[in-house]
């Protein structure tokens, strides 16, 4: 009997060696440990044996059963592992195929740049103040110390608006024609008057940012636009100095253009500030070594600034003997053009999605 069991075990283990997949495993299980397998036959025939033989054969048969089941488990693992290995090998993607996308929205580059500027200004305590895009000559020019026929007006050629009622004369000819604002500075007058109204006996200090669209009577070319954004910073208070202006601009420039950026203050002229200055930063394209962007000068002109002119303070309702202030203005589109070497300003309002999608 022991021989028979040995033969059964040997034959089963031998046949298991050729088993390669789940179906063969199942067949093997039926054939060698199934109900009608030779081994099970031995168990079912135990009853026919003598009382003495029974436990001996039973134990021996059980041993074979355990051995075969262990072998089956081991083989099953091996077959699974082989199948997994095979499937892993077969399921190779072409990972160079493009991924699935979703539609992406973006802010217009001007909005992005305006935000960069306004975010920095907000950190520095400047709040956004907005004012109309169509303005009176009085607020756009006269209150800002551009008297009629002042040569400085030539720097800001204007679009005028026709009078609504022709009987009041054409828009350009009256004392106070209506025009498209040429800069955001009329907001200075509007803001100052609003702040004065809060406490006329002791007007509060001001620290605001004035963003918005401005207009100049200029042919649209690669370098000039009839419409452009501007952001201005305005500070008014009782102890504001030109040194504060320099410090604030230097702080702003470091935030805007990098911690190590060098700035240069040049004396300049604007009717609504005095002293006035233009600020250059060292060219961030070439680091000052000279390139196309800086026209080989090593410097980029980035903003105009100055102490608020006493006449402007006065027109805003602030006594220039007590208050002083400074303002500076810059153009987000110009900043973008310098930063990204954009050689055609018309891209901005052209809104070609092939341009917009690069931001």
């Amino acid at each position, binding site marked *: 009997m022991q021989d028979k069991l040995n033969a059964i075990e040997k034959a089963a283990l031998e046949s298991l060696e050729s088993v390669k997949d789940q179906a063969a495993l199942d067949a093997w299980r039926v054939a060698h440990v199934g109900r009608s397998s030779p081994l099970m036959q031995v168990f079912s025939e135990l009853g026919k044996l003598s009382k003495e033989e029974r436990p001996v054969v039973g134990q021996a048969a059980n041993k074979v059963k355990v051995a075969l089941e262990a072998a089956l488990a081991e083989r099953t693992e091996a077959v699974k592992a082989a199948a997994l290995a095979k499937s892993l090998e077969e399921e190779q993607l072409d990972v160079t195929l493009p991924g699935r996308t979703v539609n992406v929205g973006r802010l217009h580059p001007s909005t992005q740049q305006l935000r960069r500027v306004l975010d920095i200004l907000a950190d520095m305590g400047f709040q956004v103040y907005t004012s109309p895009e169509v303005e009176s000559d009085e607020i756009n020019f006269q209150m800002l110390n551009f008297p009629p026929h002042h040569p400085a007006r030539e720097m800001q050629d204007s679009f005028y608006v*026709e009078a609504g009622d022709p009987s009041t004369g054409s828009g350009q000819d009256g004392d106070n024609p209506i025009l498209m604002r040429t800069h955001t500075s009329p907001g200075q007058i509007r803001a100052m008057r609003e702040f004065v109204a809060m406490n006329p006996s002791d007007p509060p200090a001001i620290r605001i940012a004035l963003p918005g669209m401005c207009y100049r009577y200029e042919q649209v070319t690669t370098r000039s636009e009839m419409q452009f954004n501007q952001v201005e910073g305005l500070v008014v208070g009782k102890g504001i100095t030109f040194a504060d202006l320099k410090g604030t601009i230097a702080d702003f420039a470091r935030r805007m253009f990098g911690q190590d950026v060098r700035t240069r203050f040049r004396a300049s002229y604007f009717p609504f500030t005095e002293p006035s200055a233009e600020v250059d930063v060292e060219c961030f394209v070439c680091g000052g070594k000279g390139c196309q962007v800086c026209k080989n000068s090593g410097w980029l002109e980035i903003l105009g600034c100055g102490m608020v002119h006493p006449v402007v303070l006065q027109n805003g309702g602030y006594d220039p003997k007590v208050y002083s202030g400074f303002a500076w203005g810059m153009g987000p589109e110009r900043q973008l053009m310098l930063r990204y070497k954009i050689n055609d300003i018309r891209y901005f309002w052209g809104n070609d999605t092939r341009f917009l999608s690069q931001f």
Partner: protein
Amino acid sequence: MKLPISWLKDFIDLDGLTVEDVARKLTLAGMEVDEIHYVGLAMPDYSKGEKHEFKTTGISWQPDKLVVAEICEVMPHPNADRLTLCDLYDGTEQHTVLTGAPNIFHLKGIGKLEKPLKVAWAKEGTTLYDGHAEGLVLTTLKRTKIRGVESYSMVCSEKELGISEEHDGIILLADDAPTGMSLVDYMGDAVLDISILPNMARNANVIGLARELSAMTGRPLKKPTIQYATSGESIEGKVSIEITEPEMNPRFVLGLICNVEIKPSPYQIQRRLRLAGVRPINNIVDATNYAMLELGEPLHAFDYDVLTQRAGGRNVKIITRTAADGEKLTTLDGNTRTLTASNVLVCDEKGSLSLAGVMGGAESEVAPTSVNILLEGAAWNFINIRRTAKQHNLPSEASFRFSRGVHPTLAEMGVRRGLQLMAEWSGGAVAPGLVDNYPLPPKDVVVEVTPKEVKRLLGIQLSAKEIAELLGHLEFECSIDGETVTVKTPPHRLDIGEGVVGVADVLEEVARSYGYDRIPETRISDPLPPQIGNPVHEWEEHLRDLLVSLGIQEVVTYRMTSPEREGRLVSFDEYTRIANPITPERTTLRRSLVASVLEIAEKNARAESLSLFEIGPVFEPRKNDPSTGSGQALPNEPRKLALVMTGRRLASAWDVKDSPAMDFFDLKGRIELMLAGLRFTDIAYAPAALSAAEGPSYLHPGKVAEVKVNGQTVGVFGELHPLVKEKYEVGDQPVLVADFDLDALRAASPAYGIVPVPEFPPVFEDIAVIVDESVPAARVEELIKQTGGKSVSAVSLFDVYRDEKIGAGKKSLAYNLTYQSDKTMTDAEAAAIRNKIVKRLAQEVDAKLRS
């Protein structure tokens, strides 16, 4: 203003300063150098990676290769008629130099010259410009044979040396040019191209710039000494002046020089004028220009004999007056100009002679035959000159200066300098005296400043003495009394105001003289002002972010458009019109933001899919307010949001083919998400009332909806009307547009809170009902919500179905319902709610449950 460094050196010692140093100092003080053009002097070497400071152009002359030499004899070329051979001496040895220069051709074969010709001589190996090439092309001089004669050097033209475009002849230097001297030492130069600011007209001349440089460097200004001999009869009594309007003409000065010989100016003068951008004409005209460039006073020279003739031999009387309307004058440029009453004329008793301060007249101009010259220096009203120059489109060196203000003091100084130069260059005799009519001297402005004001506004601590010194460098006359500096404006400036303005004007000069670069950088010590937010701006920025997160691209368009452009979409009765449009394409301010964004969609029509938005103002004209007299009302600038979507829903890809075109519900979905993002809960979509005149007739009547929040209309959206769409080149797919009134939307913004997350599990159930086509889905959903009350926490339509079994004119609407309770809901409770809902739907909209 083009400033040759050599000219600047006449008035200030520049030893030890490089050209860049000079340019930097001027630039920082407000006289921005746009470009340095080298004409001989050594250019900085940037090859080692030094930082540039200025745009740099031009040429440097090699000191060992280009020298002053003299031509001793001009001999014929053996094989070429048009060429000559020059016997040239360079200070050490003789050379034979070949040239074709026409301006020495007449000396050919006359033997040894009595007076050798001084020339600029280039040796073998010199790098200079090719005189025959178009434009500026560098070339190096090589030994060669020309028509059988060996040539290894040349005598140069201005073009070859980079002085001007002139290549008609060689340069003939002054007789005293030292033979053998390096040319760069003799006349090497560099020209600074300087932008003159509107308030710095006083510096549009060499002395003005030298004065500034003197203040910035502390080096003394070498003022010119204007002295000349006079002879013959005095001008006084021969000529008289009548000024009819002193406001227009505060001063008029005349001088006389007799027996001049009109000829070219000395070479160095011509060279300076060319470098300064003025074409040399003859010694008399050159003298007026030279004096103007040097001092800043434009001068005008008359042929005195023409004037005498016009006066019929009597004394000449010069009259300045405003023109009669329609009066005519032929100016120097040969154009006859029709004048208006605001133009000022210089006349004699016979009629007009010149357009004051702008351009001379043709009849009395200096001619090659002129012998006696009457020289005018005057002061004019700058606003008037500016208008006149603009009116007649006559920008000139004179009108540039006069229209920015020239101090009347300079009129007399200019005339004397002009006479001095004319005498030197023409051999004429200056008549003694001047005729000077000065009815309206400008007020001497006096301003008081204190160290306290300097500290308060500039942030630097200076003593009264230091302030006076800084201003003294710019020729302000200062006197100190305790802590007060009394400042008197120098007699060449008109830009200093009075009172607080004057203080600011003077403080700017203190800051410039001190140096902007020396003023420290400080942080504002004033306390931070009250922080006041800008809710409109912040809300709009939030909305922008929201739209971007929904996959929509922002655009920013021109505010100016035309009724024709907008008219493709919509027309309005009134527009804010531009009085001086720059193009017929942009004559009005936009009234429809949608029209602007549609134009962008059209421009991008090649794109497979477009989702665009813009946020910005439109402009609604307002009637003038009669109560404010002529006061025009500014237009309203309401804020709008425009959305435009068209094209495929999904981008085509290797596994996405023929994605369907976006339709009404793609846009509506974005709008729903946008409104949800803005926290609106009370939102209704209703078919738009197209009958109303204000209705969006540009939308498809069956695919249009009004959006109401809190019961108020805030926008409209839908598919573009087929007839309107035809007018845009946007492809075949539907175009979806939305127009929102942001002021209304923002005003309706709700307060909102967060609802707690339910603790108990929800029960889900589907329910499908059959209703008439005419029943809006929103009505069914509303009834479910009403009936379910707070037990139904969510209703979601998941299917709309039509077929024959359901019947014509009917549709099936299938919903997922979510039941939620404050305890675990039983099936029986859920069934009860469901039955209530079904019953209600049957009652209200005749709905039948679909099995």
